[in-house]
C-alpha cells in the first residue's frame, strides 16, 4: 500500500545525516552559483547532482586540507560516488515527474522551492512540497493545471 497522500512528508524524510557536511554558504560566498554544480536545472528535467569528479575539478588543488574536502578526495581516490542523501524530491511512489527547466524558464527563483539553501550550511528541506503548494503557484502564474503535466 502506498500512502501517496504523504507526498509532502517524503521530502522531509531526508533529515538523516549527509555523508559530508557540504557547506552551501561557503561555496556561494566564493561566487559560485547554483547552476555551476546543479548544471542542468536550466535545460533539463533534473537539476543534476555533481559527481565527485566535478568536486575534484576544484578540490584537486583547492582547500585540500579541510576535513570535508579530505573526505571528498577520499571518495574520489576510491572511485566511489558520494552517497548524498536526497533532501528534496518526490519519492518514486508519489508518481510525480518534476521538471526543472520550465520552472527555470518561468523565472521561478530557486529559493521558492528550495528555501535559502545559499545561506544554509547543510541543505535541509525547509519548504514543503505537496500538490497544494504546486497547484497554488501554478494557478497564480496561470501555468498548466493539466494533471498529466506532472503525473505520468
Amino acid at each position, binding site marked *: *500500500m502506498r500512502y501517496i497522500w504523504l507526498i509532502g512528508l517524503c521530502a522531509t524524510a531526508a533529515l538523516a545525516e549527509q555523508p559530508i557536511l557540504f557547506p552551501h554558504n561557503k561555496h556561494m560566498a566564493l561566487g559560485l552559483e547554483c547552476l555551476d554544480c546543479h548544471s542542468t536545472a536550466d535545460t533539463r528535467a533534473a537539476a543534476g547532482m555533481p559527481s565527485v569528479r566535478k568536486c575534484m575539478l576544484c578540490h584537486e588543488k583547492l582547500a585540500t586540507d579541510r576535513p570535508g574536502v579530505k573526505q571528498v578526495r577520499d571518495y574520489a581516490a576510491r572511485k566511489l560516488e558520494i552517497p548524498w542523501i536526497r533532501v528534496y524530491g518526490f519519492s518514486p511512489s508519489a508518481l510525480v515527474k518534476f521538471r526543472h527547466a520550465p520552472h527555470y524558464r518561468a523565472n521561478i527563483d530557486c529559493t521558492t522551492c528550495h528555501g535559502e539553501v545559499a545561506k544554509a550550511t547543510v541543505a535541509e528541506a525547509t519548504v514543503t512540497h505537496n*500538490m*497544494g503548494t504546486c*497547484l*497554488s503557484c501554478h494557478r497564480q502564474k496561470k501555468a498548466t493545471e493539466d494533471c498529466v503535466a506532472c503525473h505520468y
Partner: protein
Amino acid sequence: MATAVQIRQDKVREDLWRPLLQTRGRYVVALVLAGLAGAWGLAAWGYQIYEGLGVTGKRRPVMWAFYITSFVFWIGISHAGTLISAILRLTHSRWRKPVTRAAEAITVFALMIGGMFPIIHLGRPWVFYWLLPYPNNRLLWPNFRSPLLWDVTAIFTYLTGSVIYLYLPLIPDVAHLAEHTTGWRHALYRALSLHWTSSDREWHALERAMKLMAGIILAVAVSVHTVVAWDFAMSVAPMWHSTIFGPYFVTGAIFSGIAALLVVLAIVRKTMHLEAYLQPVHFDNLAKLLVLMSLLWFYFTTAEYLTTWYGNEPWEMAVLGARVRGGYAPLFWTMVVCNFVIPFVLLGIQRLRTIRTATISAAAVLVGMWLERFLIVVPTLAHPRLPAAWGTYAPTWVEISICGATFAAMALLYLVFSKLFPIIAVWEYEEHVSNGRI
C-alpha cells in the same frame, strides 16, 4: 387462508415485547453463527486489501463480477421495504400494518450492506472518500458526469431517507418501551423517543411526516434503482446499453424486495411465534404481489431479449448467445425457472398458494434475482466488442466468502434489531386492532 383472529390489545404488547426481553438459546446460537460468518467475510476482505484485488477471480475483461452483482442484488432487496411499505401506506392498505416495520428494517440493512460493495470492489478502497465531494487544497472534485457518482449520491440519499422512514414510526413504540423498561434499555429508548408525550399535536405531526416521507421515499427508491441500472445502461457495452434498464431494474428490485420480505416474515413468524400477527392473509397478499412482479419481470426480460435477438447485432448476439446457449446457459435457465416458473405455478394457482409455497417461491426468486444480476454483469463483460479480449470468469473463495458473509451480516443485523425493537409496529397494530379489523 384468510381467517380473522381477534387479539386483545394488552396481549399485543405482551406478544410483541416478549422477544425483546427474553433471550433463548437458539437466538444466541444464531447470533454467534452469523457473527462468525460475518467475521470470516471481514477477514477475507482484509486479506483482499492486503494482497490486492488479484485474489479475486476478476481479470481483464471481466473487471466487475461478484461484488457488483451483490451490490445490485442488495440494493434491489432494499426495495423490499420502504417501497412496499410506502406504497401500502399511501394507498391506505389496512393489511400492511404488521408488515411495514419488518420491511423497512430490511431496507436499511440491505442498503448498508449493498453500499459496502462499491467500496469492497475498489482497487484502492482506502481512498473511497475521493468519491465524495469535499473541499480540498488540490481543488479536486469528483466527476459529476459519472453514473458511479450518481450512485453514491442516490444511495446516501436513500439510506438517509430510509433510516428516517424506519425511525419515524418507531418513536411511539420506543416511547412506550421507555416507560416499561429499566437500565440501558430505558436510556436507549428514552433517547430515541425524543421525549414523545403522545400528545395530539405530536401524533398529527408524526402522521404528516410519515405521509411526506412515504411520498419522498417512493420517488427516491425508484430513482435509486434507476441510477443503479444506469451504471450499466450508460456504458456502451453490448446488452448493457439499453433504455429499458431503468424500469427493468426497478421492477427486479421490487420483485426481489418482496421476495426478501416474504422470506424474512416467514422466518420471523416461525421463530418469534407471531402466527397470530403475521397471518395467511399477509402472505397471500404479498404472494399476489410477487406473482404480479414476476409477470412484469418476465415481460421486461422478454422485451429485452427478444429485441436483441431480432436486432441480431453480432456484438449483442455474442452476449445473448453466451447467456442463452453458451456457458452461462445453465445459470440463465435456472434464473428463468426461479424467477418465473416457480412463482407463477406455485402462487399463480390459487389452490397451491400457501405460506409454505409463498416462502419457497420467494426463496427461489432471491436465487433467481441474484443470478439475473450476475448474468447482466458478467457475460457482457466477458464478451467485449473485439473478440480478441474475450475471457471467462470464475469466482475465488475470497469473493464467495465476502458475498456469503453479507447474508450473515443481514441476519446479524436483523437479529440485533429484533432484540432491540418490536418487529411489528405495536402502536400501529393496536390502532389496527382497536379499529376491529385485521
